[in-house]
């Protein structure tokens, strides 16, 4: 009848509609998570009804136990954690430094460098994967053997082949650049008057004021490092340095137990979900920023 009533009705309809869409979006993930606690028989029995998304009476940690004890998941998890941590920490330092030099230092050619960085953002990794493969096959790597320094040829089957090529990230440089550019210039000028060098300005003034963009870069770098698939299937042959995504693909091919596969999938998805939920606010704000300007 009146405006207020029709608004309430509209809101209720909206809420119901959004919930229905939400169910569609969350159902596969719910199925994954719920099934990881069920035995295979219970999963099959529940499939055609709503109970596929609900805990069953046979709720147990059996699948997780099996996955951790029988597969290489623990060592793959360790590999992925190390790779992601190194890419995140190294990537934040290296990319923010380049962005700092473009946004806060005056030198000839910085606009050209910025243009090249922006151009590199749209180069998909798939394009350089094969050429990169034949490049890293020839790169040298130092090692100590019997107290002597020897040079090995080829980066295959290592952690560094999964880290070093992904440290410099054009998208992250761009994110940092946009943020640094908008920090008021008075901040570092005051410091420069006091005789602070660029390193002090970077480490004491710019970086401490860049929390949101650091969080965003951390998420972008973490997700891309954790979800690496095409690259490791090409450069990692053995089990020793394999990360989790090729790991689950291999497990998927070898196992018939749906419950165990779902447990494996849940274990390797949770860290990303946790990182996202922790930094959600900054992330949403930053994605927003790139879209309009892109």
């Amino acid at each position, binding site marked *: 009848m009146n405006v207020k009533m029709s608004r309430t009705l509209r809101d209720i309809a909206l809420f119901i509609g959004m919930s229905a869409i939400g169910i569609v979006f969350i159902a596969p993930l719910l199925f994954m998570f719920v099934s990881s606690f069920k035995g295979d028989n219970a999963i099959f029995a529940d499939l055609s009804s709503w109970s596929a998304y609900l805990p069953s009476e046979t709720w147990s940690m059996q699948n997780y136990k099996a996955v951790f004890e029988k597969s290489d998941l623990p060592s793959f998890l360790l590999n992925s954690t190390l790779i992601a941590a190194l890419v995140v920490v190294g990537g934040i330092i290296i990319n923010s430094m380049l962005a700092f030099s473009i946004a806060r230092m*005056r*030198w000839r050619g910085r606009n050209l460098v910025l243009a090249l960085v922006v151009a590199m953002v749209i180069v998909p990794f798939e394009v350089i994967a094969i050429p990169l493969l034949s490049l890293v096959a020839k790169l040298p790597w130092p090692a100590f053997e019997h107290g002597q320094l020897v040079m090995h040829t080829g980066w295959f089957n290592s952690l560094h082949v999964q880290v*070093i090529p992904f440290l410099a990230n054009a998208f992250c440089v761009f994110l940092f650049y946009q943020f640094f550019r908008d920090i008021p210039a008075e901040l570092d000028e005051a410091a420069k008057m006091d005789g602070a060098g660029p390193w002090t300005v970077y480490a004491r003034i710019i970086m401490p004021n860049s929390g949101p963009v650091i969080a965003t870069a951390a998420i972008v770098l973490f997700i891309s490092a954790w979800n690496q698939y095409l690259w490791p299937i090409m450069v990692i042959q053995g089990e020793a340095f394999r990360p989790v995504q090729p790991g689950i693909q291999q497990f998927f091919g070898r196992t018939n137990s749906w419950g165990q596969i779902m447990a494996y999938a849940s274990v390797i998805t949770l860290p990303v979900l946790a990182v996202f939920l922790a930094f959600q606010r900054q992330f949403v704000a930053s994605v927003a920023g790139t879209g309009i300007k892109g």
Partner: protein
Amino acid sequence: MKTKLGRENPFAVAAFASPALLLFVLFVVLPMLLAAGATMTNHRLMSPEPTKYVGLDNYRRLLALNVVAVDSVRDAQGAVVRDEEGVRYPTWRQVRKDKPELEGYRPAFQVDIGESRIVLAATDPLFYRSLINTFLFAALVLPLQCGVALGLAILVNQKIRGRVFFRTVYFAPVVTSMVVASIVWAFMLNTDRGMLNELLRGLLHDPNAGPDWLGDSRYALPAIALMSAWQGAGFQMLVFLAGLQSISHELYEAATLMGANAWQRFVHVTLPGLRNTIIFVLVSTTLLAFGLFTQVDVMTSGGPLDSTSTVVYHAVRSGFKEQDVGYGSTITLVFFVIVLALSALQRMLVSKGDAK
């Protein structure tokens, strides 16, 4: 904003800029240059034989096309021979015997017109198949994913309780890796017991409804497109949401005062206001769609009948699995040129459409 502080110490600049720049040169620029060189060679990943210069052979092998008209089989009286499948045609082997210039060619596509058959033959028919599949995938996923994303953004932009919760729910699939998403969907798409077919059977009241999603060459690519849109739409939703929030409320109020209904407000206020956002989303989704690899590798391995083989999948198959780096690089380079041309074209079209 800028003050005259003079030039920076060049050593300081170098110290800040060089680590990332060196890595870019080593791992982005150098591979691209090497790739351009490798396309002219028969370079293999691990080979005892020295690499040879082969000129444009790789490009020829990849791109060579030949159109052949094949006459139907005729009997002694010159009448067309028919069998239960219709007009009979000679096999490709018989066709090639009469035409030595077709050495190395295999049929990629064919159409029957009247009593003759037009065959498009290529030296690498799988490349053309993969190229068509990639375009098909992009054509399926682009409207689906971008449309869904825009719809979701409009929904979570409403002033309604729980919008942040819904936003998180819609975004959740993005956090899932493509490998995990593919595996979970492989179960959901299972013919006999998969959730999707159970749902179809329930809705249609037909116990036999539901296709063999990943095992039928007609359904495999659409199924992968559906799954990819589910996984990726949340990200574009956030981008659209930001675009929506940057449109001034006054424009909507003015439009309402002028008597515009919801649809008219959408067409005349929302869409023009989202112009830059739409360009960004279209270009980035196209890049993603053209990079299709993981889903195919996990769910179908390019099958059934090569119906889900993509350009990147073909490049990895040649460059990595068959270790033919020269040929793999050629596919990659041709792919890159196509992607660049497409995103340039998209930018042009969208900005033109807006200018009128």
